[in-house]
């Protein structure tokens, strides 16, 4: 779960990481008032879950409160389109109004989970303000890492090590070490999955400030991060994905193809996208129904898939383990009988209770494509989609 920049900075500030003075505004008047408080030049920044906001017109410098108000009026309500958002863009309903900073240097700083040692890793680079993956690819020596061992927690030497590595020595050594320790603490205490300060700036007057910040929370830990979970901004998430989330569906992601997929298990669901590709088609979505053992979840999932105008055919690919194929079959029959899926449907059932599941389908007397094998099912779905498209084109 992602936080907005202003929310991320609130968390950081609470843990003692210095951030520019500023506040969020939801109206141009509020933006003007905040700019007055800050008493000088300010930056007005669109709050949306994407990077590269500047290029898209989402970040503006204002010389005075009046200009801040004008910028806010332009930005609030806009749809921000960047290479990260896709063509549909993201709505902007608030701006962060902050003191403008005179930048001396830009540093990169982040904390994330490193799977292999199973520990959080703190990453720093003197090449701040840039895409860190590019820096890592082009100049790996410019990336400095240290891991937080849960047996002893973050240690001050780790902060010093990184500070020296990115050239924050002299008067900056102690503030930088402390800042890095506080950043680590904010990550651990908030169940972070990633926190990134890019750039961390050294200002011309010698301060260290987190000029931009991203903070994502581990969704599995939301049960103990209530205050952060409540900050979720649903406007930043795709409507159908939210609908799926609310229906208790494990994971739904909209894709570009025309074959709607209902699969159990993330691995099989990914492999289903691959199999469709191999059969010459493209999936319209990724949907992991998980182990939801009730027909209602299946009905909800098929409703989401069936109502997607891009979907020309539906592939239900279930290998039952904890999930029972008979329950999936029941849900599928209900959804089709309720008219929620008008597209051709291919069903492949295997695993737990497969004989009962198949019987359910047989008994329903519906016109379904049926397959036993995985590749075969994918082929049939691609063919059905192609036929449906052709039929549509000839109409």
């Amino acid at each position: 779960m992602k936080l907005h920049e202003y929310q991320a900075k609130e968390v950081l500030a609470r843990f003692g990481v210095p951030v520019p003075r500023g506040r969020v505004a939801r109206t141009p008047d509020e933006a003007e008032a905040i700019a007055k408080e800050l008493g000088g030049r300010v930056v007005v920044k669109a709050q949306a879950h994407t990077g590269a906001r500047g290029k898209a017109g989402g970040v503006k410098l204002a010389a005075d409160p009046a200009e801040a108000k004008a910028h806010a009026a332009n930005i609030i309500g806009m749809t921000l389109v960047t290479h990260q958002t896709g063509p549909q863009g993201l709505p902007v309903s608030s701006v962060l109004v902050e003191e403008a900073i005179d930048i001396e240097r830009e540093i990169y700083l982040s904390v994330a989970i490193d799977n292999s040692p199973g520990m959080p890793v703190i990453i720093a680079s003197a090449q701040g303000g840039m895409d860190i993956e590019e820096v890592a690819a082009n100049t790996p020596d410019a990336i400095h890492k240290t891991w937080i061992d849960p047996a002893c927690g973050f240690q001050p030497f780790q902060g010093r090590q990184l500070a020296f590595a990115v050239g924050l020595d002299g008067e900056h050594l102690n503030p930088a070490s402390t800042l890095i320790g506080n950043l680590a603490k904010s990550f651990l205490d908030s169940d972070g999955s990633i926190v990134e300060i890019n750039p961390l700036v050294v200002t011309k007057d010698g301060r260290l400030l987190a000029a931009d910040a991203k903070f994502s929370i581990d969704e599995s830990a939301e049960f103990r991060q209530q205050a952060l979970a409540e900050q979720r901004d649903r406007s930043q998430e795709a409507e159908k994905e939210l609908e799926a989330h609310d229906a208790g569906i494990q994971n739904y992601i909209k894709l570009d193809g025309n074959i709607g997929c209902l699969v159990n298990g993330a691995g099989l669901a990914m492999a289903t996208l691959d199999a469709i590709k191999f059969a010459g088609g493209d999936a319209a979505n990724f949907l992991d129904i998980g182990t939801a053992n009730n027909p209602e979840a299946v009905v909800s999932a098929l409703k989401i898939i069936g109502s997607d105008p891009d979907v020309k055919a539906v592939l239900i690919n279930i290998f039952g383990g904890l999930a029972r194929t008979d329950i999936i079959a029941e849900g599928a029959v209900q959804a089709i009988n309720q008219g929620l899926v008008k597209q051709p449907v291919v069903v492949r059932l295997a695993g737990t209770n497969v004989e009962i599941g198949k019987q359910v389908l047989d008994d329903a007397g519906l016109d379904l494509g049926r397959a036993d094998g995985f590749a075969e099912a994918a082929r049939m779905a691609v063919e059905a989609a192609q036929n449906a498209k052709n039929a549509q084109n000839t109409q």
Partner: protein
Amino acid sequence: MGVLMDSNSRVVVQGFGGAGQREAKTSLAYGTQVVCGVTPGRGGQVIEGVPVLNTVREAVEQHGANVSLIFVPAPFAADAILEAADAEIPTAICITEGIPVLDMMRVKRALSTKVTRLIGPNCPGVINPAEQARAGIMPVDVYLPGNVGVISRSGTLVYEAVDQLTRLGIGQSGSVGVGGDPIIGTSQREALELFEADPDTAAVVLIGEIGGTAEQEAAEYVKQMSKPVVAFIGGATAPPGRRMGHAGAIIAGPAGTAAAKQQALREAGAEVVENPGEIGTTMQRVLKERGLA
């Protein structure tokens, strides 16, 4: 013999609720010794013929449990794994999904000085078809005793690979679902080591996924293996930057792509399958080529 489970395995089910009881029943019917369940505060009950205890220590002391199968809900699962480790259970298999990553970080660090091997979490478990020993949630009907080991991050892809093998008459020495979470107890590489050491295994199917570098680490070990490995990497066609269910399945950097993983495995000598529908037929060919069929 076999990997992690055999006829001497005595399974305790931690979190003996609906799913735990249902899977215990399936395992018992399969022929596995499910010796007890543990639900704190429910000690003394007997459910479906299985005695329920308060602690894992009691399961070890009173029933000689040596495998723990964990269904405890995510917020309490780390505690359950650590209880199994405290009781010195040799193998703990955690089915639970959605355990907070920082909980697993602490669990993994604590296990570094314990005897317990953890499989999972967020995994389908372990099975040895020849000895009817099952600790997991996998459907039993698709399995056939034989000499191919199956390793996967994903549960349903284990079943899929096993199903393809069985339909071709190729049996399995066992399957190990290592789990789809960012931090897991036993890596793909370590699972390969187990099958390499198992005299009943002649070849291994390794099913990886986009994201992370675990497949590259496994590939390093494939280089020194005596047994052939058939590998598939799921998510080759997934769009980058989206979290596809498994926390691991988000492409992070060039090492996380399917192409990078496939290349590492190919260079290590594994047979890499690109179409997930061809895992079984590829293994069939490899076994024939090596004279192992």
